């Protein structure tokens, strides 16, 4: 088992459903808007905007997906902040939410609490994460899994192959990374309030980065006629973590890099994240009693 206390923080948070100590630096009351536009910041050798590094969301998490008195809803379209469910689907989500704290059947245990990947959108609403860029690829290293964005035009996987985070194809337009997600299994819920879509949902994402490098705005539009009455857009704002950002075990889960040369400029890194390995209660499939 991990002997470092910080490595099991995500697990504690999952089990308690609490926010733990969120650092004030990352708690914002409104969604910081970044509009699509030209990129004037640094670029990589292959021409991509250089947006590498550590990031975290600034608004709540999956406990308050459709908003509370303190946090705005992450659903930004429709304007009422609610998921435009068909009636039967709203009932299904409500049923899941009603039994979340008392999961009398295995299907009421949130898949995320069992350490399943968070899916394309919820992963951004959880702990801080890292972006690494390469010719042809962008990697997202989430606390709850890894996501690969393919920047080339290779075909998506055959339709019958389903994964938690789906298969992603992206391209840059100015400051904005546009991504189409296919092959997702739709098993991840958006929030602990149970919102879901079907595997037929079309997911189109945009990640708009401020050229100054401090913020980006993630938007995902879900089109799913089998579950929703109209398309829905989810927005998650994110802010950059720097070596000056105080670690808080939640938004900022980085550690200082130890350099052989002590005069080296400060830098930060994320340590290995595990979940199912340390999650005997749920991830290793203990069933509700």
């Amino acid at each position, binding site marked *: 088992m991990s002997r470092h206390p910080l490595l099991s923080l995500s697990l504690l948070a999952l089990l308690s459903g609490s926010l733990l100590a969120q650092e004030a630096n990352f708690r914002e009351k409104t969604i910081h808007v970044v509009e699509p536009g030209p990129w004037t910041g640094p670029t990589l050798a292959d021409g991509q905007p250089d947006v590498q590094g550590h990031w975290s969301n600034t608004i709540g998490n999956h406990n308050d997906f459709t908003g509370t008195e303190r946090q705005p809803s992450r659903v930004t379209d429709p304007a009422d902040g609610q998921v435009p469910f068909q009636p039967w689907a709203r009932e299904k989500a409500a049923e899941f939410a009603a039994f979340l704290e008392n999961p009398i059947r295995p299907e009421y245990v949130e898949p995320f609490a069992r*350490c399943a990947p968070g899916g394309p959108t919820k992963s951004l609403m959880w702990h801080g994460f890292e972006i690494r860029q390469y010719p042809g690829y962008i*990697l997202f290293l989430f606390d709850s899994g890894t996501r690969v964005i393919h920047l080339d035009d290779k075909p998506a996987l055959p339709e019958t192959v389903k994964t938690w985070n789906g298969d992603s194809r992206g391209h840059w337009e100015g400051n904005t990374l546009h991504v189409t997600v296919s092959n997702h299994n739709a098993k991840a819920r958006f929030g602990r309030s149970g919102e*879901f879509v079907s595997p037929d949902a079309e997911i189109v994402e945009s990640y708009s980065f401020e050229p100054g490098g401090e913020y980006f705005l993630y938007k995902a539009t879900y089109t799913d006629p089998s579950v929703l009455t109209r398309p829905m857009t989810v927005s998650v704002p994110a802010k950059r973590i720097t070596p000056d950002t105080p670690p808080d075990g939640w938004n900022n889960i980085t550690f200082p*890099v130890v350099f052989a040369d002590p005069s080296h400029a400060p830098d930060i890194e994320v340590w290995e994240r*595990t979940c199912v390995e340390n999650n005997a209660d749920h991830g290793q499939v203990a069933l509700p009693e």
Partner: protein
Amino acid sequence: MSPAQLRRMVPLKHLDFSLAAPRLVLAVGLLFSAVAQADIPRTADGKPDFSGIWQTLSGADYGLEPHSTRKDAPPGPGVVTALPYQDWALKRRDENFKHRHERDTARQCFSLGTPRGVYYPEPFQIFQRERDLTLLFQRGFRTRTIHTNGSVHPEGPIGFWFGDSRAHWEGDTLVVDVVDFTDQTWLDSAGNFHSEELHVVERWSYVDENTIQYAATIEDPQVFTQPWSFSIQLHRIREPNFQLIENACYTLDYDQYYPIPAAE
């Protein structure tokens, strides 16, 4: 002499990479790295570029030691003659083998550990920057970062499943020092194991543009009587449009509880 010519003269399969020969492994590695390799992929700063999708054909995960066929593995010549276990540890290994289907955490899709992730029979992808190499293993879709930014191990002990990897270049060879392990991973699917004091030194070098020679020296004073080494090859997967597929196999035992909600 090119590495290919050298390999033809001294076929690796004829070399004994077991206990008696760790220095030979080193010598072969140095020979490879000393040969100027003009036709291997290189990064902008001139280092070998290991970017790509790789998989071994060695069968090392079925058993590091020579073994006959069994229901859960094909036969194999092994990559070491015999691991130098302390007496207690050999008994534990034999017990592990007997109970391998229950005890091997890789079967639960937990992180594979180091070096096992490298020769597990499923592909992994290397993403390389000047400051690090990211190994993304299809099984579990977990990453291991090998840092090449002049950093050193953080203060331990830390129970990492893949260990903490800090590396430097020796010519065209990437030399990786890995420490700070949990004792929960195995070295193969045949019960070979280690303690938290595992120390792995890896040497990554190109044989040719589509083949990596991967050599590792294993130390663990709690489990083994002396260090031991092995060397295997990794092959670049060149199928057009091949890509890793997220294999979140740790979800399989509960996947049945999550059918897609649908109108009844």
